[in-house]
């Protein structure tokens, strides 16, 4: 299965997207795949050839991407990357915080 990584965003190919998944609303016509909480920088797909979905289970949100034609994901600090057609789960890199003794997702 295809593995892609754009900064702290992990894009993992999956066989299917859950039928109960809800389509995400575009922002100014663009898919915001992940938001930079401190910098305001976003991982964005502008193309209409992809849609993002989410499923919330026990308060935990899992996001998916369905890509019909090759699309480009962009970010202010990362080189653009092409995502081939397919279905993907979107996750975020995690790290371990030894001061708090807990794992946490990477934030930028």
């Amino acid at each position, binding site marked *: 299965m295809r593995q892609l990584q754009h900064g702290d965003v992990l894009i993992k190919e999956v066989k299917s997207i859950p039928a109960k998944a809800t389509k995400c609303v575009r922002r100014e016509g663009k898919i915001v795949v992940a938001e930079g909480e401190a910098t305001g920088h976003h991982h964005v797909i502008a193309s209409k050839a992809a849609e993002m979905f989410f499923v919330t289970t026990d308060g935990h949100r899992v996001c998916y991407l369905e890509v019909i034609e090759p699309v480009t994901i962009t970010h202010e600090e990362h080189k653009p990357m092409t995502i081939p057609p397919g279905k993907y789960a979107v996750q975020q890199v*995690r790290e371990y915080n030894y001061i708090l003794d807990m794992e946490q997702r990477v934030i*930028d």
Partner: protein
Amino acid sequence: MAIKWPDGWGLYMMNGIKMKPEYITTPATEISVDTVLAERNVDQRRELIRKVGVSRMVHAGKVVEESNGYKLVDMAPVFTGIPYAPHLLMKNPSVPDTYHLEGVAPECKTVQQAINWRGGDISIHWEPESLN
């Protein structure tokens, strides 16, 4: 301060990243390694590493393994009462000459295990065909 308004409010920035004022006003030699590792935001941490120097960060720990441009560094000497605190040192593929140093779980003993763990599962090989 990168920009300052007449009322005194302003922004402290490093290479386009908004920083805490003390990160700018404190000389690099006076910023401790644990201060860098305690910074929650990875972009700010990256800029702090650029400021204090990656070699100083690595010298504060002990290199466990080096592979494919990555270093697994045990930063336990920086912390109190923690016997093993692996961190993965990696070059930023998009921003030239910058590095990230991110903690990984204590069960990570190799660079690949650390990469896998960051990708969500220590037992699943994570090797993206595209990494930007």
